[in-house]
């Protein structure tokens, strides 16, 4: 059943092969998954080369031009990538022997090194080097583990599990690093069965939410690619998507705009849930019973709770690499200011940095205007998000002290408030062509003031 679901979710032949191997030989889990990771790297490089992406300034590849030399280059690139990952693990394993400055600031050193590589990639035109930033947060978890002295006795192949995850995903490491995965690894028959059942549940949920998303496309938005709904019913609310009316020139009715922002919130939650459930579902099927990435965020009663439940591993990344370090260092600040600084370091600065690092072109081109056009709206989004989280955390602490519990009506009101907050700030987060901050503020005011 799990295999059928993974096949349905189009996880690819390699994960299917690896997962079936692990299900047959759970004791060989790590070696099978690390072998699959090497296959994933091979696959990525093969697709890049086949996709006619110029990996060298003078290269122009195509499927027709594949020769033994092409294969040799592919194998050489595979060796370079594996050697780079091996170097990262070797550094982590010998962390105590590094110079003092590197031991104190390993993440700063890593990020500085990656930016250097990105600059070299831009100057030289070697596009392949741009992928240096892709595993950066996974390597960051590796170095954090090393800093705590917990990598010396680990094996390279074990680190491949998360450095090149066969379950895919974005630069956000779902399942974090080796330490976290090991803590949640099922090692006896009963816990493996429990983990696989939990994984199955997520894969089924992904299927259900995927169907709901498809239905929404037909019922709410009248999008074209909704075969079954269209064939049975020729009816739709025909609402504009948030992207349409934020990026467009015409302004729909207020009712349509209000409905559109709430539906967009639901849609984005379901999208994140589907992707996360497939990834975490796969991890659980292979025996790593880690936390879900999305857990009922639409039932959250506070902004901070929503943030915790919506995209758990992205929040954890920001908390691990920005929030805690800031909070622990700012012992001089009074409690509220200290919390404020830590929240802004994570939800604002960290959030912005994560996205800029993932799309660094305007920074590397040193183009301030293009930079602000691209990142200005997200700057406002992160600012509002950080403010909301900070206020929400202060309120949550006060409630905990009072021991107050919400009544049913108050709970519904709280949930509605959370929906409204996140629905409104999405106006600044949605990718909508060239819509500027003032365009988006005009849209926001149109919703709020009517």
């Amino acid at each position: 059943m799990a295999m059928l679901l993974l096949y349905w979710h189009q996880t690819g032949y390699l994960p299917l092969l690896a997962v079936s191997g692990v299900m047959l030989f759970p004791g060989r889990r790590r070696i099978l998954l690390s072998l699959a990771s090497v296959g994933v790297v091979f696959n990525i490089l093969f697709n890049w080369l086949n996709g006619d992406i110029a990996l060298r300034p003078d290269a122009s590849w195509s499927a027709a031009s594949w020769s033994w030399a092409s294969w040799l280059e592919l194998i050489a690139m595979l060796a370079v990538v594996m050697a780079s990952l091996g170097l990262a693990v070797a550094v982590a394993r010998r962390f105590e022997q590094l110079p003092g400055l590197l031991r104190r600031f390993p993440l700063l050193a890593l990020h500085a090194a990656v930016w250097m590589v990105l600059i070299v990639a831009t100057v030289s035109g070697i596009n392949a080097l741009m992928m240096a930033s892709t595993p950066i947060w996974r390597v960051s978890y590796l170095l954090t583990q090393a800093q705590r002295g917990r990598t010396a006795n680990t094996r390279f192949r074990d680190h491949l599990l998360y450095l090149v995850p066969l379950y895919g995903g974005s630069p956000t490491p779902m399942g974090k690093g080796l330490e976290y995965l090991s803590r949640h690894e099922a090692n006896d028959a009963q816990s493996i069965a429990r983990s696989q059942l939990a994984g199955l549940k997520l894969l089924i949920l992904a299927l259900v939410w995927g169907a709901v998303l498809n239905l929404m496309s037909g019922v709410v938005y009248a999008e074209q690619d909704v075969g079954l709904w269209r064939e049975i019913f020729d009816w739709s609310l025909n609402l504009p998507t948030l992207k349409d009316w934020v990026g467009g020139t015409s302004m729909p009715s207020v009712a349509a705009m209000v409905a559109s922002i709430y539906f967009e919130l639901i849609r984005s939650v379901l999208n994140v849930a589907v992707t996360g459930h497939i990834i975490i579902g796969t991890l659980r099927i292979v025996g790593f019973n880690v936390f879900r990435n999305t857990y009922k965020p639409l039932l959250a009663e506070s902004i901070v709770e929503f943030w915790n439940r919506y995209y758990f591993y992205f929040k954890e990344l920001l908390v691990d690499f920005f929030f805690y370090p800031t909070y622990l260092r700012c012992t001089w600040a009074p409690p509220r200011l200290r919390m404020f600084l830590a929240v802004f370091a994570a939800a604002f600065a960290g959030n912005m940095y994560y996205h800029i690092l993932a799309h660094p072109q305007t920074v590397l081109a040193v183009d301030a205007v293009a930079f602000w056009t691209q990142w200005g709206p997200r700057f406002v989004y992160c600012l509002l998000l950080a403010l909301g989280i900070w206020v929400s955390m202060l309120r949550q602490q006060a409630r905990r002290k009072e021991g107050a519990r919400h009544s049913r009506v108050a709970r519904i009101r709280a949930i509605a408030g959370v929906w409204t907050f996140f629905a409104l700030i999405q106006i600044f987060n949605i990718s909508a062509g060239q819509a500027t901050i003032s365009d988006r503020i005009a849209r926001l005011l149109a919703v709020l003031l009517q």
Partner: protein
Amino acid sequence: MNNATAPVTQREQLREFLESIARPGSSFSGCNDETNLIDAGLIDSFALIQIIFFLEQSHGIKLHERGIDPQDLASIAGILSAINPTGR
């Protein structure tokens, strides 16, 4: 001092504090000293801040100076170990 033999009052005091910051409706009855409170869903990762604050205020512990990782404070044993570092 070994954490297993940490004063009963210290453990009880800590448990009482943890219950005060736990998620509403959650119960500590089934957890022992080693239980990871975040994994068990009793507290969220932001509640760790309150644990850090508690350790700083009531025990004068500067986590940053001692190189303690906040995630290590997710269990009663981890917190006791931060309070009594020689116990481990």
